[in-house]
């Protein structure tokens, strides 16, 4: 029997992602997603309130081979069929990245195929091709997760990405985790805040970071979520001190509204200033239902089209790395050398290491 992958076009690329706590292995042919296998160590980190790097690295080692096997089974391909390997070489947790990079090199040696060490953020952008077809060029990308909050101008995702703004303190997802903890909600906080917020009302006017006139001069498209987190903590403490119950759903809704408001406002301002008509939102926080709804609603009024991959492709995964790898192969970009490093602070402007 001929597998489905045999009938579609383009290079078959296996992508590996281990920058944080997800071991992801994806298989993509051209812009067609064949498999997106994931193993997560998130449960092992929950009681620590955040990802413990050594725990994540150990889990990556254990999960690597089974996850590769699962991806091949799902895609109905043999490793021998793979045309190229792509792997996240940064940014991320150094020890965690290294497990993926070493595994990718072993595949490259064992198969005699090229390896592409790619930027995690560029992969978050490229993944949308699997769902919505070729990326508009240029497009604006808002990437928000527990590890990053960036506004990027993307002319060609295989060549370079220009940062327009980024968080100056906490990542947006980090703020979700911290506020969830204040409210007694489990880690990771994003889905729990989202769920609570749907039951609540926006009743509290929490501050919008870096939106004052003076801040906008220096930090036009930058974000700050540290002040917001502190404001929520103060509000909750004052409430507790007065002996009144904390309206968890309303606090969650109000906090979430403040985060989404700043993200969408700055993204649309950037689109207007740069004359870009397509906004792509990615990263774990892009799974937030309010962010999606607000972006679509406000962008429509300003003539901007919004693309958001489905939640499973927004969080870290191997498919996004494979998607970028396939695009690099399709465009004939140069692969990486076998001494490719894992670079925990890989600059956003570098697509292939």
């Amino acid at each position: 029997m001929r597998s489905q992958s045999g009938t579609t076009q383009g290079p078959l690329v296996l992508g590996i992602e281990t920058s944080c706590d997800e071991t992801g292995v994806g298989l993509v042919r051209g812009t067609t997603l064949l498999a997106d296998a994931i193993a997560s160590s998130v449960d092992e980190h929950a009681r620590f309130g955040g990802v413990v790097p050594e725990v994540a690295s150990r889990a990556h080692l254990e999960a690597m081979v089974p996850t590769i096997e699962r991806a091949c089974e799902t895609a109905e391909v043999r490793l021998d069929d793979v045309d190229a390997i792509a792997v996240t070489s940064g940014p991320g947790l150094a020890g965690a990245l290294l497990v993926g990079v070493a595994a990718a090199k072993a595949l490259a040696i064992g198969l005699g195929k090229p390896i592409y060490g790619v930027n995690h953020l560029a992969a978050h952008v490229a993944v949308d091709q699997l769902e919505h077809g070729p990326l508009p060029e240029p497009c604006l990308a808002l990437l928000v997760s527990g590890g990053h909050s960036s506004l990027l101008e993307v002319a060609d995702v295989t060549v370079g990405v220009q940062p327009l703004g980024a968080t100056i303190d906490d990542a947006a997802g980090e703020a979700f985790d911290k506020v969830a903890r204040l409210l007694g909600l489990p880690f990771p906080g994003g889905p729990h805040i989202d769920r609570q917020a749907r039951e609540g009302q926006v009743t509290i006017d929490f501050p919008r970071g870096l939106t004052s006139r003076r801040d906008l001069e220096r930090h036009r498209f930058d974000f700050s979520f540290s002040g917001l987190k502190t404001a929520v903590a103060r509000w909750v403490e004052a409430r507790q001190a007065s002996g009144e119950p904390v309206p968890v759903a309303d606090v969650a809704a109000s906090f979430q509204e403040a985060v989404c408001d700043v993200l969408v406002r700055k993204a649309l301002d950037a689109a207007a200033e740069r004359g870009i008509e397509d906004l792509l939102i990615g990263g774990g926080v892009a799974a937030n239902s309010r962010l999606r709804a607000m972006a679509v609603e406000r962008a429509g009024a300003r003539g901007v089209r919004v693309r958001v991959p489905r939640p499973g492709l927004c969080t870290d995964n191997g498919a996004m790395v494979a998607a970028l790898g396939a695009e690099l192969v399709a465009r004939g970009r140069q692969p990486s050398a076998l001494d490719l490093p894992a670079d925990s602070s890989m600059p956003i402007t570098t697509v292939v290491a």
Partner: protein
Amino acid sequence: MLLAFDTATPFVTVALHDGEDVVAERRSEQRMKHGEQLAPLIDGLLREAGLVRQDLTALAVGTGPGPFTGLRVGLVTARTLALVLDIPAYGVCTLDAIALEAAEGLGHSTDFVVATDARRKEVYLAAYDEQGARLSGPVVDRPAAVATELPVAGEGARLYPEQFSRPVAPELPSAGWLARAVAEERVELTDPEPRYLRRPDASVPAAPKKVS
């Protein structure tokens, strides 16, 4: 053709063994950077020996104990290569490979100890008989707690001369000896599982701090 490598000490070591003897061996030039150096060393060694990846029939990898980040590079490489080449990967305690070479150097005349650097002012340590068979360990401990008058192979002897007064060769593991150990079935073979010997550093956070 057996490919052997070890990443459990500051240097990467790789070797090829054809069933009769070691046919090629290399050690990394730089300390650390295991992830950058291992794959090019394997690739270069195969070329040097005029071999292709399909010639490989088995893998041997040092399972430590050793610093975790480097150790994992060797283990994930062995596991993944074994998967893609469809060949077995055997794990060998890194200290055992050092011990076989040390026993040879000592002329199989005395019991001895292998001690490597565990950082944090500790060593990874195991005790061996004159043939290089492991008697106890491996453990991780402070040098003072495991000080010995016996000969000591491994970097530990150089790092802690007061506790280990009789340093002997070798200081580092050699993949050649690792390969011999496996080819000649002179050590206990395990799955390619890491010997961490330490739990991850992690603490459960206290309640959120007050901000006001």
